[in-house]
């Protein structure tokens, strides 16, 4: 199947969004307390698909919920029974608007671990049933370095339909997957009021990308970093770099690629629920064994685990970096630690010193 490009204007796109929202289960960034989070919307007024990247939470919770119920059970003196297990009700197609490219890439990266051996069918099903409309940034944020990582940001196929701003209020829509192609074609066939024309002229999109790529403050050579980090497991630089971390775990909770979770039981009287919810490797209790042994007792060890997992371990295992360069961790960090600065600093230290 070939993928196509369309051109429209702001009004046309908004009409299209409204039509989508009225017909489909739609999620988009909704502002609360100055932070945007992806929530179900019933009209375009509630949300802002062009939300600023620095203030937008990751889209990951729509695919990998912050906490999901594994099962509900009853344990009484008469016996134990599992009352219900979590059945994902998602069957109808849903649409997510305004996903940042780095965020969508995060989902693609997570597919690797979720497809590995035991298949996380819920995650894959959710992704399959979702059409992702992206919003390509026009300008890089202070902490962004998405162009420096191992994926082609310009032609990213982790999202279904790329929305790109052109000159003079023109907006380009480009399908990137079969799912997106089918969805958009169907929408366009049904109505002509979106001002949409098919086009082959991608020069403006290219221009927008070049301008966007030029606006980055942070650039790095990820291959170099991967190689150098792999050799620096024993580097004392980790200790130095982790000193001002307050172990608050924010970075892991808002990261689009972090996928560690904990399994916990909660009960009232005889009825209990087992949840799977996010956890962070920066937490002291993360690896603490019941017997008292902790393989990563010191803060720098936990820091090392986090940065090495992102740039070395995941790459070794699945061939991609577990970082998409969105900069969310640096933005949310209360003490402004940037993982970019840290890994670059560690990679620049001499081996074994």
């Amino acid at each position: 199947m070939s993928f196509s490009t369309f051109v429209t204007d702001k009004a046309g796109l908004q009409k299209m969004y409204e039509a989508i929202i009225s017909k489909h289960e739609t999620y988009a960034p909704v502002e609360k307390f100055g932070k945007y989070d992806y929530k179900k919307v019933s009209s375009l007024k509630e949300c802002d698909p062009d939300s600023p990247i620095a203030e937008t939470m990751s889209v990951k919770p729509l695919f990998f919920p912050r906490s999901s119920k594994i099962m509900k059970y009853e344990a009484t003196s008469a016996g134990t029974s599992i009352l219900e297990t979590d059945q994902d009700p998602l069957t109808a197609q849903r649409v997510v608007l305004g996903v940042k490219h780095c965020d969508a890439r995060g989902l693609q990266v997570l597919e690797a671990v979720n497809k590995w051996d035991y298949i996380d069918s819920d995650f894959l099903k959710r992704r399959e049933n979702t059409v992702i409309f992206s919003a390509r940034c026009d300008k890089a944020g202070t902490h962004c370095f998405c162009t420096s990582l191992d994926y082609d940001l310009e032609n990213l196929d982790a999202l279904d339909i790329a929305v790109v701003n052109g000159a003079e209020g023109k907006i380009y829509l480009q399908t990137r997957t079969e799912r997106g192609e089918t969805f958009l074609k169907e929408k366009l066939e049904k109505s002509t009021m979106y001002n949409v024309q098919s086009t082959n002229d991608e020069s403006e999109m290219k221009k927008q990308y070049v301008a966007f790529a030029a606006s980055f403050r942070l650039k790095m050579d990820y291959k170099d970093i991967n190689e150098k980090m792999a050799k620096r497991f024993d580097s004392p630089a980790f200790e130095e770099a982790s000193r001002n971390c307050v172990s608050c775990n924010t970075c892991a909770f808002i990261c689009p690629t972090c996928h560690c979770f904990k399994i916990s039981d909660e009960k009232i009287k005889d009825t209990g629920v087992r949840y799977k919810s996010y956890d962070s490797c920066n937490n002291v209790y993360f690896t603490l064994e019941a017997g008292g042994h902790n393989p990563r007792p010191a803060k720098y060890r936990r820091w090392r685990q986090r940065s090495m997992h992102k740039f070395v371990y995941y790459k070794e295992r699945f061939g991609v970096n577990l970082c998409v360069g969105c900069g969310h961790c640096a933005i949310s960090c209360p003490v402004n630690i940037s993982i970019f600065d840290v890994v670059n600093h560690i990679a620049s230290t001499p081996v074994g010193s």
Partner: protein
Amino acid sequence: MEALLVPSLAKVDRIIQETPDVRTYRLKFKDDSVTEKFSWLPGQFVEFSLLGSGECTFCISSSATRKGYFDCSIKRAGVVTADIHSDIEEGDDVGIRGPYGNYFPLDDIKGKNLLFVGGGIGLAPLRSLIQYCIDNRGDYKDFTILYGARTSADICYKEEIEEWKKNTSIKVVLTIDKPEDTWKDNVGVVPKILEEVVKPEIANTKVITCGPPIMIKYTLQSLDRLGFAPKDVITTLEMKMQCGLGKCGRCNIGSTYICKDGPVFTYEQLKALPDEF
């Protein structure tokens, strides 16, 4: 994913008080279809949940060659294990997921002399392999079990050890850390007994060891001294695990996931891992 994390119910058939703080739970699945699907090899582990309390990882301490049941030996250590000890009675239901992880390299050890070195509750994973090997005794040559515990009361599987002792084809060496009045066997820590009493044959021998981290550390050193090649020394690791599926990101050492690539490793493989266990 969530479906993979739902346990099947099993019934506690028998509880054996091994030592003051270790109990063995003999389990049978309530559903026959689960029993049929549930097959494991020595070294694998299960996720054992006491519904209403939590989930823990335990190795299966019996062999699949003994059909119809499986054992988990549980030492009281944390919140959930304390609940397991105090709440579970014979006939109660528990949740079981698994089996997960890899197993002892059964093909590699075929036709070799076997030396089992266990300490404390570390005999549990070895017991699974010992039972398996006893049931397939013809495949293996000399058979030595060295087992150490802190005191004579802390010796697990006392009845079974007596059985092994009666079996003339098995050499059993027991030791405790400090002398006791009624104790007639060896006294001393495991590495010392290994070098001074057992004096194992090096050639054509595989060593399988498991125990507390400090014992493992010194046993590996003394095996090195005796001249065992690292690839002939097999051990099982433990890390905190929660999912057992390689997803929750808790048990990795470097890019190796203990729950998927382990828990059984040779000393050679262990040496290649970063020092984080």
